[in-house]
């Protein structure tokens, strides 16, 4: 097949900013994508949600940019603009017509280097309110909206950087002060803790030149985060469980597993195992629970790659009304055991690889997503060429390696179960006692 080989050039500025350029002249647009190596995993107790709240403040003006103008200037130039925050990082990105590339870099350099002049108590209070509404809309006012929060809290030990969700808690959002914002910027934001990728209709020389021009003068003020230092968190050794009873439309189970960190061959292997078990329409668990025994109305499985010594794997199932959730859980566990014992068939492996290939090529079809993947693997795994090598690495994984990964990471006793159950007796307490996952942390 015409395998992908996107061009990729790299340069590191004297201040430590790593810059990647991938020219693509098919469309007259350019994506600028910046990954800052700070996420919710870097937050301290009592200040959960700060990384994300901070990201909102990055749109409220900087020394030379009035509040709101970052958006309005780029939108008026034909830019599509956003930012997101996650456990391991915060990313900022825009796709603009190529004639607006320099404006985009100038705006980014100003907020990444000169933000604090413009941060005010008024802006902080307003964006705090906005973030609280974001939390209510996406999590608190949605029937299963807090299920993933409960998964993180159940499978990652108290105090672990992935124990709390990126959105944070209302109390911590309320407690954030202007001094916190200043300290957060000083510690984490600076060219020496960031990666900048440009993909699109520009030459390498022009792109590097413009980045040097606007980011080159910034000083390496951040405390650069070193990757690969978080201790490995091994799988659970016995099941843990959290049950939530409430006004949900149907019982839903989340079976979560501690997987190896992303960027490793083991993670690729266990990811394929999850596809084969429950990620595809022809997957074993879908075939058995959804299509044949019809005890679940839907089932999915997917790996969530993380950088800090552990990733997360999730199997979730919507239980058919009238079926005991325990029956569904038992069937899932039986399939896990069966898979660990015998591994995948050739046909299953072929399907998992083919599906991975199509979804990867679809994702990379757009400049914006391609830039994000380059930043992602450069920032967290020092592997910017991952966009080009990933499919070869996936194709090289053997059935024996997948079976070995399933045996190491996807056994029933390694599961953390979060059950969201229909509250059968109205007025009953919404939450049952928790058994927390306190075992197995290596520090």
């Amino acid at each position, binding site marked *: 097949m015409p395998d992908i080989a996107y061009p990729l050039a790299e340069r590191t500025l004297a201040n430590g900013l790593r810059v990647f350029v991938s020219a693509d002249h098919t469309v007259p647009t350019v994506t600028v994508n910046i990954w800052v190596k700070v996420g919710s995993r870097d937050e301290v107790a009592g200040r959960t949600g700060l990384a994300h709240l901070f990201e909102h403040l990055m749109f409220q003006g900087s020394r030379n940019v009035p509040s709101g103008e970052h958006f309005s200037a780029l939108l008026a130039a034909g830019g599509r603009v956003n930012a997101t925050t996650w456990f391991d990082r915060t990313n900022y990105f825009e796709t603009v017509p190529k004639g607006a590339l320099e404006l985009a870099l100038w705006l980014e350099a100003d907020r990444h280097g000169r933000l604090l002049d413009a941060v005010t108590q008024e802006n902080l209070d307003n964006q705090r309110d906005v973030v609280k509404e974001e939390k209510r809309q996406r999590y608190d006012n949605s029937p299963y909206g807090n299920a993933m929060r409960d998964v993180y809290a159940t499978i990652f030990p108290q105090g672990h950087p992935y124990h709390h969700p990126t959105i944070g808690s209302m109390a911590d959002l309320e407690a954030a002060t202007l001094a916190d914002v200043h300290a957060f910027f000083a510690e984490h934001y600076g060219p020496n803790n960031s990666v900048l990728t440009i993909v699109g209709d520009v030459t390498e020389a022009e792109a590097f030149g413009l980045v040097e021009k606007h980011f080159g003068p910034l000083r390496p003020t951040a405390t650069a985060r070193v990757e690969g230092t978080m201790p490995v968190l091994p799988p659970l050794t016995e099941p843990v469980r959290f049950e939530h009873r409430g006004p949900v439309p149907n019982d839903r189970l989340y079976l979560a597993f501690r997987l190896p960190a992303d960027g490793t061959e083991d993670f690729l292997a266990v990811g394929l195992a999850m596809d084969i078990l429950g990620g595809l329409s022809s997957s074993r668990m879908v075939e058995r629970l959804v299509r044949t025994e019809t005890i679940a109305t839907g089932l999915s499985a997917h790996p969530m790659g993380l950088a800090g010594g552990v990733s997360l794997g999730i199997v979730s199932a919507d239980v058919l009304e009238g079926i005991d959730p325990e029956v569904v859980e038992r069937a899932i566990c039986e399939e896990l055991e069966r898979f660990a014992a015998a591994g995948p068939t050739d046909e299953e492996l072929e399907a998992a690889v083919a599906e991975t290939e*199509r979804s990867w090529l679809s994702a990379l079809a757009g400049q914006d997503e391609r830039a994000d993947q380059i930043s992602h693997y450069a920032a967290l795994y020092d592997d910017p060429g991952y966009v080009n090598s990933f499919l070869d690495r996936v194709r090289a994984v053997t059935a024996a390696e997948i079976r070995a990964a399933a045996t190491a990471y996807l056994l029933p006793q390694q599961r953390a179960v979060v059950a969201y159950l229909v509250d059968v007796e109205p007025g009953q307490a919404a939450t049952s006692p928790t058994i927390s996952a306190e075992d197995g942390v290596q520090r």
Partner: protein
Amino acid sequence: MTPEAVDNPEALPRPDVRPAEPFVVPLPVRERLDNGLTVLRYDMPGQYIHSVRLAIPIALHQEPLAKEGVATIMARTLDEGTARHTALEFARLLERRGVALGAGVGESGLSLDIDVAKRHLDYALDLLRQALVEPAFPSDQVERHISTRLAEIEQERSIAGHRAAAEFWSTYFDPASRASRPVGGRAETVAAVTREDVLAFHARHVAPDEATLVIAGDFTGIDVIASISRALGGWTAQPAYQAPPARPTPDVAPDRARIVVVDRPESVQTEVLVGAPGPDRQVEGGWAPYPLLGFMLGGGPTARLDALLREDKGYTYGVRASFRPRRREGVFLTSGSVRADATVDAVRLLLGVLDGAREGFTDEEVAHGVRYLTLTAPGRYATADAVADEAAALAYDGLTTGFTGQTLRDLTGMDADRVSAAYRRFVDGRWTVVLVGDAAGFIDGVRDLGRGDVTVVPA
């Protein structure tokens, strides 16, 4: 206050933006096969994943009243077993070559989507043919999809946004109209669907005669039309086929201008959905003002609604507004979630922004919006799936991306007077308002707004 001063040197002067190159929206090569199927081809070099979209117009009022949802069940079971393969075999055939096949039903009709790597295109088109022409609709799979749809109905009821939409359509449209009820059917009608109903619906409505197939991707070195002819050239209508009726007449409820509150005690937010009639794509004077109006009012943090409700008041994560064309006429919808204890003020301000816009838009706002919509177009139509999705959505109206290009050209000459007149033509201050939230907290205040009758219904 600053623990470690970050003292970077002053920025360089703000750079100018160089003018964008002229952009031409991709246009299709159009062909009609002997069986009536219209084929639209978009050659997009470098797009290695091909996107195939099949649009088959069906009017949902052609569903039997007591079996509403049968079209949706049919769409979902097309690939759950065929003349040659069981449901599992078919799923395996799709996935062993990474073929993503989806099917669904909307207001305009049935759609089937395929995304596949270029080298597996012929393989994928043959599977599309089998799903389309040879579905077996095994009873057990039909029954399974009925129970899945029943569970989905419960899930939708529990999600504030979905619940608001359902209540909106049943308030906005006349109760006699199909559009007042869910596209996928209600619990009692879905439960009544049988395999025979699905078979009969398929025989009556799934045919190439009025259908359009869109394909976008890198065609270098392959003969796409030959592949499509080979796969679908032999597809013909069954004897029971009924051509879709002409564009249905609109059927808005005479009493639609009122407020309905869906009571969900203890909600921490109130979901707000506000609507009024809008244009369809054939509207006199052109469609171009309407995407622009949506952007200026509810297209992001710079738009009027978010500038007030999000950036000034902090009541919401965001409010969106857009004109949604339907087959005939359309709807202007505004929606968002607001803090529960700010509901009354948020609704008052939101309606104030929408009503106030009848006084007109400034030249500056219009120029900003025009720049955004025209200059983002190259990026919005850069990938095969984006182009194919746009082309398929337009195909139900007998249009192609030529319409998209015409709209963009029309936008470049837009002025504030024309946009403001276009808004006033539809917006007259009579709104259908649906609020999903804790009624006790805001019901009196909402009544005091004086925006029409207020009805409270259970969640």
